[in-house]
């Protein structure tokens, strides 16, 4: 038994016992919690932007976790595949909340300004494209769709998450006024996780 499998095997055993609905529940809880913080001053004097950013960041984190599952299995033998659908669906839930905050709280339903922003502001255009691309992935995140589409084409469609994650990170970088470290880290991690998929496997 290798040192790695001493660590990984118990995690795999444990993961087999954990129900996937727990991922939905655990990731649903922070949403009302952050709204509560925002309303009670816990996010500072400008809670709308803080909340919007928080939801956006968690979306990116979930996309990263989702993208890490395949390399984790390939290189570490860590099998968390059964949680991936829940992770992806929750990423969509967070992006909907993020977008909802923008529309309702940040822009106060100023449709004209929003419509202009979507077309004229590249970072918003990019964010919107990434959001729209997540819709078909969410809609097909069920067993029926996998059967209906066939595993091969279902997998192909779901590779759309690669550009989605990159666009999400670029969107985050572009909102900043200067080159901030944190958004650049997100992009770096996403690109690294994608690169790992293109390293040819030594195993047959």
């Amino acid at each position, binding site marked *: 038994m290798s040192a790695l499998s001493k660590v990984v095997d118990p995690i795999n055993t444990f993961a087999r016992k954990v129900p996937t609905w727990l991922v939905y529940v655990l990731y649903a809880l922070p949403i009302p919690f952050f709204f509560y913080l925002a*309303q009670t001053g816990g996010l500072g*004097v400008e809670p709308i*932007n803080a909340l919007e950013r928080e939801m956006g960041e968690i979306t990116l984190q979930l996309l990263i976790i989702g993208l890490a599952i395949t390399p984790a299995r390939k290189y570490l033998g860590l099998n968390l595949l059964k949680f991936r659908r829940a992770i992806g669906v929750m990423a969509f839930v967070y992006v909907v909340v993020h977008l909802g905050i923008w529309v309702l*709280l940040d822009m106060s339903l*100023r449709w004209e*300004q929003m419509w202009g922003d979507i077309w004229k*502001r590249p970072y918003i255009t990019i964010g919107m494209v990434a959001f729209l691309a997540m819709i078909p992935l969410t809609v097909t995140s069920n067993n029926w769709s996998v059967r209906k589409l066939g595993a091969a084409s279902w997998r192909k469609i779901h590779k759309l998450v690669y550009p989605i994650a990159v666009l999400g990170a670029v969107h985050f970088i572009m909102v*900043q006024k200067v080159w901030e470290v944190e958004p650049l880290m997100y992009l770096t991690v996403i690109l690294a996780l994608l690169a790992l998929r293109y390293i040819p496997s030594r195993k047959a």
Partner: protein
Amino acid sequence: MAHRWKNTFTRADVTPEPLWLNRRAVLAGLAGATTLGGVGSVAAQEALEPNTWEQITTYNNFYEFGTGKSDPADNAGDMVTDPWEITIDGMVDNPGTFSLQDLIADMTMEERIYRFRCVEAWAMVIPWNGFELADLLNKAGIQTGATYVAFETAVLPDVMPGVRRNVIEFPYVEGLRLDEAMHPLTIMATGIYDRPLANQSGAPIRLVVPWKYGFKSIKSIVKITVTNEQPPTTWNKINAREYGFYSNVNPEVDHPRWSQASHRTIGGGLFNSREDTLMFNGYPEVASLYDGMDLRENY
């Protein structure tokens, strides 16, 4: 030349002093703002509620102390602002380095309740204490031929983590055209709510130009230079396409990455809504400074 501009009301007119710090139900004055373009007059009477001290001092941009909004409040505490010296040089009759105390000894302090509009599309209303920059420049003696005023912020790496990390190029520099600098609305502030400025607000002395985006109102000033050349300005050096020398608040001219048509005034919580941004931030009396200028070109 002090008292050339007046709030129609001051906080003192409506709120007893002990309530100033905790109450936001305060009317501040403003004359009727008229849209430029001659479309007609809007906002004939408007209530300006000053933001609270807490709001004003916990949500700041002061990159010397970090790029996050709460970084200045968290990190600026170690800056020593007394004693403080300011150098005045360039095209003036009386150049030199002066202690802040001496420099402002004979300035007339006033309260000015101004809207403060950040280029990031948020705003506050701030009850400044300060004096007209014109008085200081006149005291220094502006020489013939001078056309601009340049300003510089302190660089104190020991107490400024943003400077140590070089998040942007320091010192932070800003500038005004001489007529902008001499305008009665342009003040040097040393306090807010009759208290000395908090370090994160630009203690001990800063510029306030209420019709321009906030980054023009340079903080913690150590040098003022009267010159006949347009001085470099920090955000313009970082990204000339996004930040011009003038940077007048203008709802018609968008920042390339976001609209400037509206903003949110800090303090309304989670369900705070946006309001329309006014030309020159609602100070139409400065419009004549830009007669004949294309403000889209000179953004």
